[in-house]
């Protein structure tokens, strides 16, 4: 479990003026949870991701990961074993010149024996259905393939927690679905080990795939509930902070009595796409 308590992060911009990116924010990430985080641009989503991944110092507040203070984990570098992060732009994290080297990178750094490394790289390339990309340079891949590769390179280290910072915002619909599908596979495969996903997205529609959604606004939690409850009861909140409610929920509310067929846009974890 990750316990975030009273997180504050201030960015100093102009002289004498600082902006609170996170403002006294507290919440827990339980084991085996698939959490979506949504909110308008500038609401603190990425800052929260970086804090929990140990990449952004806190102005104040504490983060406890499985009972240990995040600073201890950072000092010993253990945090990199516990938490994996995928950035918005895969170009920010792909750094080798061959797909299989990219995936092996995390294992090389952990001195995994060659035989085991080759086996695990093969395994994950099959799980991610990217075996055919072997030998290619990450630079030649499409945006969707790059993001899938970035995800595979993080998942090979078996992190207990996976943080994704808007991994789909540069992708088109088919690629967004592909990434979502892969996340479902990963979650189902490893949820019994306590594996949790914190999925930050600018598309509320995608967050509907999660079991729980946290809505951020101005560095604070504006709502924390199941997708169904949020999109049904919190439309006024969504409108006021400028986040789009998935259109079928808008219709259901605006036209009482209308039957909207279920599952037309279903990304949910249990729907085998």
């Amino acid at each position, binding site marked *: 479990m990750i316990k975030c308590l009273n997180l504050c992060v201030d960015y100093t*911009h*102009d002289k004498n003026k600082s902006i609170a990116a996170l403002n006294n924010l507290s919440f827990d990430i339980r084991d085996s949870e698939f959490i979506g985080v949504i909110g*308008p*641009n*500038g609401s603190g989503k990425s800052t929260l991701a970086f804090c929990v991944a140990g990449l952004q110092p806190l102005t104040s507040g504490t983060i406890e990961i499985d009972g240990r203070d995040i600073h201890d984990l950072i000092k010993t570098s253990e945090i990199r074993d516990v938490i994996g992060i995928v950035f918005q732009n895969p170009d920010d994290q792909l750094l080798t010149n061959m797909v299989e080297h990219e995936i092996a990178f995390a294992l090389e750094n952990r001195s995994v024996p060659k035989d085991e490394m080759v086996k695990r790289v093969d395994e994950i390339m099959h799980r991610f259905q990217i075996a055919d990309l072997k030998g290619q340079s990450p630079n030649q891949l*499409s*945006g*969707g393939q790059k993001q899938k590769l970035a995800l595979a390179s993080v998942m090979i280290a078996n992190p207990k927690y996976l943080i994704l910072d808007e991994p789909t*915002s*540069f*992708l*088109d*619909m*088919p*690629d967004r679905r592909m990434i979502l599908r892969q996340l479902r596979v990963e979650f189902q495969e490893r949820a019994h080990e306590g594996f949790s996903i914190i999925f930050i997205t*600018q598309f509320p*529609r995608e967050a509907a795939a999660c079991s729980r959604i946290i809505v951020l606004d101005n560095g604070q939690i504006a709502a924390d509930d199941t997708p169904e409850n949020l999109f049904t009861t919190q439309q006024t909140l969504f409108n006021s902070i*400028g*986040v*789009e409610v998935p*259109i*079928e929920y*808008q*219709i259901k509310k*605006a*036209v009482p*009595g*209308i*039957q*909207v*067929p279920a599952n*037309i*846009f279903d990304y949910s974890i249990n729907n085998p796409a």
Partner: protein
Amino acid sequence: MIIQLIIPLSGTVDIRNYMQIDLKNIHFAYPVRPDIPVLSGLSCTINQGELIGVIGKTGSGKSTFLQLCTGFLFPNSGKIRIDGTEMTKAKDWSTVRRKLGFVFQFPEKQLFEESVFADVAFGISKYIDEKDEIKRRGHAALEEMGLPPEEFAERSPHHLSSGEQRRVALAGIIVLEPEMLFLDEPTIGLDQKGASEVESIITRFHRNGKTVCVVSHNLDFIVRIAERILVIAGRTIKFDGTKNLLFSNNGLLQSFELEKPEIVALCEAIAEQQKINIQGIYTIGELIDSLTRAMNSQKTRV
């Protein structure tokens, strides 16, 4: 010179500013991969006053198409004419350059001045000397973008929200008063608020009789604003027609590997379930109106 008169849906066309881009049998490959053409045998005409949506899969050549239309790239073969004049060299383009506004993907990454006003004025100060005139037009452009100059002109562009930054970048193009505006993924990365602000800027520009050609993979955005759709697939334009024609034809969409816009998919699903006819609806507001009417008439019948 042949001038084809197009009546815009609204606004007026100033005939003196009339502009038409005509692409004939264009072939293009990037120098790094000369053996793999990105576009091949592509032809189309862009007329004054149109709002064209360009769609297609990632990597289909949409951005390349925009850059060919505006002279940022030169075709390996084929002809590009603007108002009948053939564009062959960079020099030909320089005479029409000011009339063609181009907004790159993530244009805010090109903001570099210390103040919003300085950034907006950067391009236009290459054409105009009078400081007062630059100021007048710069402020007018900021106003137009919903960024009141008294509040924004002196702020650093780097400390604005991403939606505001994008609008500053747009102001830097609009201030040049282009006749045609080309935009590459103008809503990418923006939240709903930012995206709808950009959307209304584009529709406003078009309503003044100007031409807009926009590339996007956000199909719901495209169907809301554009009437004419170009689908780029298999290295050329595979479809050139109205959105009604394209999005009511499942076979066509599948052959281009395009998904339906959410609004279209929702309309179809509801129409089937409620046994009502709802077609040609592209905004949530229209759908709500249409369904409310349908529900009321059902009640009356009962």
